[in-house]
C-alpha cells in the first residue's frame, strides 16, 4: 500500500462516521435520492451514489427516516425526510461531534 493509498483510507474512515450525521441534517428538508446527493456534494461532502442510496434505506429501516413516493410527476420519486427519532439521534450525534472536536482541538493545540 502506497502512502497515498494509506492516506486515502484514513480519510474514508474519518468520513464514514460523519455521513450519517450529514444525511440526517440535510433531511430536515425532504429530498429524493439524487437531489440529496447533489445537496451533499454542493456542501462539499464527498459521498458516492452507491453509498448514499443503501444508507438511506438502512436509516429508514432503523426508523430514523420516513419516506413516501411522489407520483404526481411523470416519473415517481421516493422522498426521504427525518423522523422524530431521527431528530433525537441527530442532536445527540451533533453534541458528541462537538465534544470530539473540542478534544481534538486540545490535542492539536499542544503541538
Amino acid at each position, binding site marked *: 500500500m502506497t502512502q497515498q493509498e494509506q492516506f486515502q483510507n484514513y480519510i474514508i474512515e474519518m468520513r464514514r462516521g460523519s455521513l450519517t450525521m450529514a444525511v440526517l441534517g440535510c433531511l430536515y428538508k425532504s429530498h429524493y435520492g*439524487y437531489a440529496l446527493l447533489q445537496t451533499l456534494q454542493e456542501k462539499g461532502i464527498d459521498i458516492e451514489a452507491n453509498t448514499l442510496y443503501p444508507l438511506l434505506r438502512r436509516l429508514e429501516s432503523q426508523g430514523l427516516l420516513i419516506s413516501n413516493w411522489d407520483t404526481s410527476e411523470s416519473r415517481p*420519486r421516493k422522498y426521504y425526510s427525518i423522523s422524530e427519532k431521527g431528530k433525537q439521534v441527530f442532536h445527540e450525534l451533533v453534541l458528541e461531534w462537538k465534544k470530539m472536536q473540542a478534544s481534538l482541538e486540545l490535542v492539536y493545540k499542544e503541538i
Partner: protein
Amino acid sequence: MDKLIKRYIYDVIRRLPEKEQEEVSQELEANIYDMLSENASEEEVKEVLYELGSPAELAEKYRHSPKYLISPAIYEEYIKVLKWVLPVVGIVFLGIGVIIGAVESISDDGMIAINLFIKNLFTKGISMGISATLQTLVWTTIGFVIAERTGYRSKSTGDWKIEDLPELEKNAKHRIPLSDIIVELVLTTVFSILAILFFSGALPFDTLIKIGDMETSNIFTQGFMYACIPATAILWLFNTIPCIVKLKERRWTLSVFITLLISYIVSITTFLFVIMQPKIFTSDFIVLVAKQEWANTGLLNFLKSPIQNPVTILVLIIIILVGIGECGMAAYRMLRNREHKNKF
C-alpha cells in the same frame, strides 16, 4: 438504453432477499433516471452505471443481514466449541456403538459369536461414532446460525470479561496434552465395555478357574455380578466427565479439579456399594480354594465375608489414598497454573 438499466437493476436485486427486491428495484430505477439527463445517450447511461459501481458490491451495501453462515465475530467461538465437542461425541458414541454391537451379537445361549462380535464392533462402533460426529457438526452449526440471526451477541463483541481473554502462551507445558486425554478416554471406555460384558456374562469366552484337577467357571455370585454392571456404568460416566472438562479447558483449572474431586467421591462410594454386597464369591469357588494346601483361615474368611475383612479395609484405604493423592496433584497443578497465569 432502458434495457441496460433494467439488466443492471436485476443484477443488483437478484442478490437481495425477495421482500426487498421490489422496493429497491423501484428506488434504484428512479435514482438512476434522476442521474441521467433527458434523452440520455447510451454512453451517458454507461457512465452512470459505472459510477454506481459493480452490482454485487451495491447489493452487498443494500443487504442488512450478513450473507455468511458463521460471521467472523463468532467464528472463533464456533471453532472452539467444535474442537472439544466433536471428539467427545465421537468417542462416546463409538463406545455406545460397540456396546450395542456386542449386545446384538449375543446368541440365544447367552454366548457371543466371536465373528459377529468383531464385525459388529467395527460396523456399529465406527458407524455410530462417525454419524454422531457428523450430526453434532450439523446441529452445532445450525445452533450457531440461529443464535446469531436471533440477536445473540458473542462475548468478543458484546459483554466480555477479562477472564475470557485467550492465554498468551499456547504451547506452555501447563497445558494438558491432548493425547493424554484421548488415551484416558479410550482406555476408560474400552475397559468399561469389557467389564460390563464380563459382568453380564456376555464375553465371547468363559472364565474358567482351574487349580490342580479341580475347576469352576463361577467365581463371583450372580448378585455381585449384577451389582457390578450399573457400578461400572457409573464409574465410566464419572471418569468420562473430567476427561470432557479437561478437553474443553485444556488446563488444570478449578472446574477440572472439581469434576475430578466429584469423580473420586463417586468412585469410592460406588466401590463401597459393590463391596457391601452380601455374597461376592460363589460357594463353589470357596470350596475349591478351601481344598488347596496353601489355603489358610485368613484367606477363607476373606472369601466368605469380604465386607468386614481387614483385606477389604486395606484395599479401601489404598483407593482412598490414591484418590486423595490424585486430587492433591490436580490441586497442585491448578495452583501452579494460576501462578503461571498471574505472571502475565
